[in-house]
């Protein structure tokens, strides 16, 4: 019984995730809402819970407030009790260290006291920004069988995508013999998922070698490979790094498709809707007479009078008569007024699209005009509307556009009548 359950979990939730653009303007990437009711970190936390692991440290750094509010005391994932618990570990000044976390390994190093204070045989290091379902208990068992120093969760990806990942080359026993961080020329299709099981002793030793080694993928893992200590744990299920607008949108759309392999409720993923007050005491979604809803997910508190096709709606979204929402992700309490059109967009919370406005006009050709300031963020046609932005009636917004969030206290913006493709306002 004790065995694998003893592992300590460290969740890296500090990264900026800047490729998510304005979605991470005011919140950490793991706190970005996903799939209508969830936040990205719910997937990792629920996996930890379902694997029977009970002690978690969450390493935060960048804009942690929304994340901290979401995690609360961890009750949503049963992390409450005498010996179970979840702790937020922000960077802090100490006798020697007075710095921010400089990288994944550095962040763990700065919390060595937490690791020592929570006796364990293994430490599981996870990212808080992946959408997947995985049993870490199985992985820990595998790690012990292999007698490894480090085991890395790895999955097969198309060779064309390997340049985004740490890539491992394995022998017949799944021992990793070579490692390339984000290789330009693919030699393997085995990609690191950023999930590590360390032997606690081995981890402490590895971290004590050289304080300049701040990153797992760049420093710690290559040296461990030299020491023949690293094994790959193959994973075959659904897993997505939702660190870009495109992958964020793709993964949301995956939730809509029955054959995509992702199913939050069946996976037992727990949201923490109570963290936002009475978010979930909202009444059931109301579908008005004559509305059309197809291939979509709709959350409680929403009111649908118009048309919603192939979209994911968070709680409290209102789609008025004659309005059309297509291929979009709309976050909490946004309002799409009568006869407005939203096509291929991600709208943050409390967005207001005025009557007859159009978000995402333009044909396939227009979709290929990348955003002029962030061509690597928006290039497939998706338009981003920032939190609280109020798009005036009749305004027209093209493809790959960004409307910045509305900032409280700032003078009211005067929007142009039209924002052409690739524009920012």
């Amino acid at each position, binding site marked *: 019984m004790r065995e694998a359950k003893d592992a300590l979990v460290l969740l890296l939730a500090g990264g900026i995730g800047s490729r998510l653009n304005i979605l991470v303007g005011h919140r950490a990437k793991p706190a970005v809402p996903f*799939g*209508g*009711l969830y936040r990205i970190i719910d997937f990792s936390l629920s996996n930890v819970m379902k694997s029977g692991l009970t002690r978690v440290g969450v390493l935060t750094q960048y804009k942690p407030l929304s994340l901290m509010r979401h995690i609360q005391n961890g009750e949503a994932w049963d992390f409450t009790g005498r010996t179970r618990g979840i702790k937020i570990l922000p960077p802090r000044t100490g006798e020697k260290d007075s710095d921010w976390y400089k990288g994944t390994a550095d962040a763990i190093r700065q919390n060595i006291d937490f690791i020592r204070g929570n006796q364990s045989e293994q430490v599981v290091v996870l990212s808080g920004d992946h959408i997947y379902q995985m049993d870490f208990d199985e992985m820990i068992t595998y790690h012990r069988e292999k007698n490894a120093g480090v085991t890395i969760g790895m999955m097969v990806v198309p060779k064309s995508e390997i340049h985004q990942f740490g890539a491992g080359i394995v022998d017949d026993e799944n021992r990793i013999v070579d490692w390339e961080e984000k290789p330009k020329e693919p030699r393997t299709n085995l990609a690191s998922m950023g999930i590590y099981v360390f032997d606690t002793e081995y981890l402490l030793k590895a971290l004590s070698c050289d304080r300049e080694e701040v990153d797992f993928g760049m420093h710690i893992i290559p040296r461990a490979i030299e020491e023949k200590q690293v094994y790959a744990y193959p994973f075959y299920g659904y897993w997505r790094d939702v660190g870009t607008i495109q992958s964020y949108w793709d993964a949301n759309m995956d939730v*809509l498709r*029955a054959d995509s392999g992702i*199913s*939050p*409720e069946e996976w*037992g*993923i*727990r*949201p923490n*809707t*109570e963290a936002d007050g*009475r978010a*979930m*005491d*909202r*009444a*059931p*979604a*109301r*579908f*008005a*007479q*004559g*509305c059309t*809803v*197809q*291939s*979509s*997910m*709709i*959350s*409680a*508190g929403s009111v*649908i009078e118009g048309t919603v096709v192939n979209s*994911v*709606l*968070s709680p409290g979204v209102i789609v008025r008569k004659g309005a059309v929402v297509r291929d979009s992700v709309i976050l909490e309490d946004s309002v799409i007024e009568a006869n407005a059109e939203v096509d291929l967009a991600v709208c943050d919370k409390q967005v207001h699209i005025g009557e007859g406005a159009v978000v995402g006009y333009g044909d396939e050709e227009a979709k290929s005009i990348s955003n002029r300031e962030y061509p690597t963020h928006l290039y497939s046609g998706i338009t981003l509307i920032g939190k609280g932005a109020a798009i005036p009636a009749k305004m027209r917004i093209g493809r790959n556009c960004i409307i910045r969030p509305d900032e409280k206290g700032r003078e009211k913006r005067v929007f142009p009548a039209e924002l052409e493709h690739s524009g920012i306002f």
Partner: protein
Amino acid sequence: MVMPSTLAMILAGGRVDELGVLTHYRPKSAVPFGGFARVIDFPLTNLMRSGIERIAILSQYRSYSLVNHIGTGAAWDMIGRHRGISILPPFKDYENPHWYRGSADAVHQNLDFVRYHKPSEILILSGDHIYEMDYRDMIRFHNEHDADLTAAFIKVKKEDAALRFGVAEIGDEYSEGGSLLSYEEKPADPKGEWASLTVLCFKPEVLYKVLGKNQAAASYEFGRDILPMMVQEGMKVLGYKFRGYWGYTRTVNEYWQTSMDLLGSNPLIDLEQWGIRTNLEHRDIRDCQPLKVGSQGVLDNSLAYNGCIIEGTVKNSILFPGVRVEKGAVVENSVLFFNTLVKEGGQLRQVVSDVNTTFGANAQVGISSIGGSSGRVTVIGWNNHVPDNMTVGCGCSVAPGIEEEKWPENGLEDMEELQ
């Protein structure tokens, strides 16, 4: 600031026969309502919004579902040093060998609890009604006129009130109400046109006295015994005129009608605006994913909560969490409780289905065998599996958990009961 010290007692013990199969295994106050909530959430939310902090629930019949639903009381913010919900089950002691013999007896048996809290007034509520009310207005009225008892009433047509409600005639002394001129319990030919909401505000000393006196009687009900006694004895009883919406759920047909009041473009009950709260822990509804609509799904003039999967057609209906409507199935004018499954080709019309019930492929339920609509609701108890191709007429009633071989091969005729 003066601490509010009203003690509220909710009468939630009863099982009401007319609700039939819906209350076989739960008290009426725990019956689901509104697509995610329970009937008792309405008085509880009203109490929360009225700033009343101390609540007791008198519960006797099959109380598990209710106990489970109340939980810690946190759902209504009723948790803290001086705030809370206490569930008061019946008990035995040296003097008292009885179950609760009626609503008045239930309160009488718990008078030590009541006195302990030294309330400034005692609010007795029924846990069975759907309404939005700020009790503070009524309590203010009660105290302003130093009444012994103030009872809330709503105006109804005399013919609707006959045999159903406690009916009063109320004087016009004040804009909020006046003296109770007469009170009759479920009269055949009502004198007044004001029906009792079973919202009663008592002066504590008066309540202790009348409950003590009532113990010598043979019946122990607030409506039938206490109110008439107080009027007869010339105590200061005021009627408070309530002018909002009041939904009655005593029979299956009334329950259905009140549910339908949630629908339409101008619903009589606006759950969102009322700010209704429920315990999301109950049946784990907070862990449901958003409602999923398939490529062929249709939702029209309906309410549906998270966790539903809609591949078929849903019209004028209310769906609780976890309801699944498969391809080709049609659900109309119906209320489907948690985790109801309507399989491919199933047709439901004017049906109330309790939890965990499956309607087999091509089953036809609530559809009159003689054609046309009788306007009668068909109700299916929980944990049933209606066989494939089964036909069930309208106005039928099926008890919970019917074994498969008990289903008659040629179906149920209109108004038939299956037990």
